[in-house]
C-alpha cells in the first residue's frame, strides 16, 4: 500500500489517511464578486501531473497537511515538513 508522509508520524499506509482535495486559495470574502467566489467553491484544475493537495491523518494524529502528488503516477513529489523543521 502506498505510504503518505505524515509530517507528525512519518510515512504511514494510505488507509490511515483521508483526502482533502486540491488546495484552492480562499479569496478575501468581502470584496470577492460572485464569479470569484463561485470559482473558489466549484472550479478545480484537475491536472494530469503535479497537484498541491490536502491530506489528513484521520486514523492517526489528525494532522492536516499539504503535499504535491503527480495525479498520473500517484508519486508524491515533496515531503511536508514537521512543524519544528519549517
Amino acid at each position: 500500500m502506498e505510504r503518505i508522509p505524515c509530517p507528525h508520524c512519518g510515512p504511514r499506509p494510505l488507509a490511515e489517511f483521508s483526502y482533502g482535495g486540491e488546495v484552492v486559495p480562499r479569496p478575501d470574502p468581502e470584496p470577492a464578486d460572485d464569479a470569484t467566489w463561485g470559482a473558489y467553491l466549484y472550479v478545480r484544475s484537475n491536472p494530469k501531473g503535479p497537484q498541491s493537495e490536502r491530506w489528513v491523518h484521520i486514523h492517526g494524529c489528525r494532522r492536516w497537511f499539504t503535499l504535491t502528488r503527480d495525479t498520473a503516477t500517484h508519486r508524491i513529489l515533496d515531503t511536508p515538513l514537521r512543524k519544528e523543521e519549517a
Partner: protein
Amino acid sequence: MEQPFRLKAGGRIDRTRPLRFVFDGKGYSGYAGDTLASALIANGVHLVGRSFKYHRPRGILSAGAEEPNALVQLGLEPRLVPNARATQVDLIHGLEADPVNCWPNVRRDVLAGLGLAAPLMPAGFYYKTFLASRHLWRHVFEPLIRRAAGWGRVPEDPDPDVYTHRHLHRDVVVVGAGPAGLAAALAAARTGARVALIDEGTEPGGSLLGQTRTLDGHPADQWVAEGREELSHLPEVLVLTRTTAAGLYDDGTTVVAEERLTDHLTSHGGHGPRARLWWLTSKTVILATGAHERPIVFPENDRPGIMLASAARTYALRYGALPGKRMVLFTTNSAAYESAIDLQSRGLRVEAIVDARPDPSGPHVDMAEALGIHIHKGCAVTATDGRHHLESVEIMLLSPDLRTVQAPRKLIECDLLCVSGGWSPVAHLYRHAGGQVEWNAEVRGFTPVPGPGLPRVVGSAAGTHALSQALERALTAGAEAAREAGFGDGSASSAPRVTETDALDGMDLWRVSDQPGDGGRAIGRPGHLSFVDLQNDATAADIDQAHREGLTNVEHMKRYTLTGFGTDQGKTSQVNGAVILARAVGEGPEAARLTAQRPPYTPITFGTLAGRRVGGLLDTVRETALQDIHRDLGKNGGAVFEPVGQWLRPRFYPKAGETMDRAVARECRAARQEAGLLDASTLGKIDAQGPDVVEFLERIYATPVASLPIGKVRYGLVCKDDGMLVDDGTLARLEETHFHLTTTTGNAAWTLNWMEEWLQTEWPDLRVRLTSVTEQWAVLALSGPKAREILAPLAPGMDLSVEAFPFMTWRAGAVAGIPARVFRVSFTGELSFEINVPWRYGPALWKALLAKGAPLGLTPHGTETMHVLRAEKGFILVGQETDGSVTPRDLGLGGMLKTKRDFIGKRGMARSDLQRPDRKVLVGLRTDDPAQVLPEGSPIVEAMSSARPLPMLGHVTSSYLSPMVGRVIALALVKGGRERLGQTLQVPLEDGDLAKVTVVEPVFWDPEGKRRDG
C-alpha cells in the same frame, strides 16, 4: 491401460503417489506433481471443452496462465470453482472436474451444430440481430443465448472458506521465479536486502523445469535447486509459490498477489484461510514475468491436438506426458526446433517441420536435419482435419508476399501439431504501473519501454530470450535494485555458463491464407475459420469485418469482435489481433497498439479480495453504553435497532405483539403526556477550549457565540463556504474559554475533522484545542410534562425550577449520585433535560430514572418517536430536511444568522442565486386524507398537466402519522413556499394516485411554545 501417454521415467512427478480423479464423468489416474492438464494428456484426453460461440471441440493449447481453452468446472456446492485453467490446477486425489460450454458432455454436445452456422454469425451478429427488438431480446434471445454460452457455474451458497490479507514491506520484490527472476532475487538477497520472490507455479524454476539445457555443466534443475537452497538460508528472504501477482499499484511500488493456500491439498482439516492476498510494498520491483508463445493464425487452427510448441515440450519433459505420437511442428522461428528435437528424443515421431521461412538455418535446423526430420521450407499449414482430435494437416507453399499460398497441397497425418509464431513478453504488470510497450522488430514482440520510476524488467519479459544474457542482466538488475534500496554496491556475481539455444531468428507470419493468390483478399475456404481468440471464437475474418465497418481503433475492434476478452484476457490473442488489424489498415506491426491491460493478471476469487471484511467484520458497529439494556428491554426481545451512520440505535421498543406503528404511537403519547426517555449518547460531542476559542467558534458558526454567557446554551448552525447548512447542534459555555459543542449523530466525525482543517490549514495562529468527547459522555434525554417530577428526587442538590434552571441553560451536579452535566434543551418541544454522565454510568442513570419514572408513566422511546416528536414541532433534521443545497434562510432560520461579523458561509449565502424569492423553503403540508403518509422525497406539483417535464415545486422531506395531532403531518421544501401558505398542491404517488395537500406553517404542536417549561 492406465495413462497410455505417460513416459516410463522423467519429469517432476512422483510416480509413487498415484492419484485418482474424474473428468467429464469418467475416472482417470495421474500422479502427484501433475496439473489436471498434464494428467489428462497422460491419459490421452485432449478434447477438454467446447468453444464459447460455435461449440467447436477444443483441446489444451498451453501449459500455463495463458490457456484460453481448457477451462473446467471444479468442486461441489458451495465450493464450486468456475472456469479454472486445467493447466494451472494442481491434481489432487478425488478431484472432480467438468468441461464447460457443453451439454450433456464434451463429446456429445447438443449445440455442436452451431459451428455449421458460423458463416451466418459474424462479428456484431448479436448486436445486429438480437437487439432489433428490445422485448424479444429480454424475454427470448438473452435467456437462450446465456444458457447456450454459459462458461462455468458460480456457487449459489455463501462461501464457507475464510480468506485473509497480509501487508509486508520489502526492499526488493521480484515477480516471477524463472531463471531471470531467480537470478535477480539471488543477487539482491546476497546484499542482505529484504527480498520477496513470488511465482504462480508450484515451485521456482519456470521454464528451466521443462527443458534440457545445462548451466555450468549441470542440468538446469540443479541450478534451480541450489538457488532455492541458498535463498532458504537467508533470513530476510520470502519465497512464495502458488502466488500470482495480480496487479502493480501505487506508482509501481505495491505488488498485490494472491497466494493459494489449500486448493492443492486433498484435505486441510477445514481450518486456515483458503487464500491470502499479499500487499507487498517495496522500494524496488523487478518483473521477471516471462513470455507467452504466440499461436499462428491459420485456417482450422483450433482442433484438439494443436498446441504451443513450448507447452508440448513442457508436458513431455516436466510432467513425463506425451501430447501425441506423431507430430508436425509449424514454426516461424528456430527456437521452436528445440521443442521438436526434445520431443523426438522422448519418443514422439516428428513427421515434419513446416517452417514459414524460405531459408531457415542455424544449429537447431542442422540438428533437426541430422535427425532425419523433414523440413518443409517456406510452407504453412493451410487446413487441419479430425473430428474430436487432430488427424492430419494440409500444407502449402507460401507466396513470397506471405499473403497467399501456392499449390501443391500436401497432407501429413499426425495427432499433434505444435505451433510457434514467436514470443510475446508478459508486460501486464509493467503496464499497470503506467509503463508502455512498443513493437521490437528484433524480438518480434512488444517489449517494455524503459522509463523513470518504472520497474526493472528482466528475462524474456524484457525480450531477452537468450538464457545466458537473461541470467547476466537479471543478476545485475537484482544487485542494482538492492543498491537503490540501500544494500550492497551494485556489483553482481557472474552468470553461469549455459548451453545456448538459437538466437531469436524468425519471421513475422501473422496470418495464413489457404487460397491461391488473388490479390491477398482471400478469407479462406467456406467454413474454414482462422481463430485469433480461441476463448471468444473471434476469427481473423471478424477483425476484417470490424475494419470494414470502420472500427480501426484496437479498443473498438476488441469490443466488436471480443478479441482479448474473457478469463484469459487475450494472453495468446492480443498481439495477433492487434497486428492483424494494423495490417488490415495497411500498416505493419510497429503501428499496432495493444489494448489496455488491467489487473488482475488472472482471475481472483471475490473472497480473496474481501479477505476478513465480511459479515460482522464488514464495517465498524458502534454501540452506546446502554446497548445491553436496549436489547433486554421489553418482553419481545428488546429494541428494534436501526443503523445511524456506524451506530446501531434503538428505533422503537415494541411490547409483545405490538406493531411498529402501535409502539411508536404509544411512545409518542407517553412523551407528550407523561415523559419519554431517549438514549441520545450517539450525539456528537466536542470539547473546545483555548485562549482563542471564542474567535474560532465565531468564524465557524453562522450563529453568534461571543455573547453567550457562562452557564448558558445556544442553538448553533454550521454552514460550508457555499452557504449551505451542513450541521446543527448546541454550544454550551462551560468557562470563559471552554465550550461543550454537540453535533448531529451522523456528522460528528466529519464536523470535527472539518473544524480541524480550518484550524490547522487556514488559521494555525488560533490557539484552540478540539477533542471528541462523544464516547466520554452518555446522554439520556428526559422529556415530557413529568420530567421535572421524575428528575427532582434524583437530583436533590439541583434546583430544577424554571427560575433557577431556565430553558437553554446548563447546570453541573449529581444525578442519582453520578456527577452530571444537565442541559435544558429540547428536541421535542416538551420540558426536557439532557443528562450527561460519564459513559460507563449510562446504564446506572437509565435504571435510576426508570425506577423513579416508570410509576409516573416514563416510557423509553427510540429514534422513530424522536423523529415524529421533532417533526410535530417543525424542528429540522440535517440530512432529512437538508441535502447540501439548503441554506438556513431556506429553513426559516435566517433570523438566527449573524449580520455583521464574518463566518464561514456568509459570503456563500450572499450569492445572487441564493437570494432568489422562489427558492425552495421549509413549509408544513396538511394532507386532505388524514391517514395518507407521504413517501419522503415525493415530488410536489401545482396540478397535473400535460406539460413535460411537469414543473416541480419541491419535495416532501418528512411525513409521519402523528398520534397527538391525530392525523398525518408533513414537512416539505416548496418553491416560494411562504407565499403559498393556504394553497392546495398535489403530490403524485407511486400508484398513480394524487394526494391533495394544503401548505401550512411547519409547526403542528404547541406553536406558542408553552410546553417547554413544563
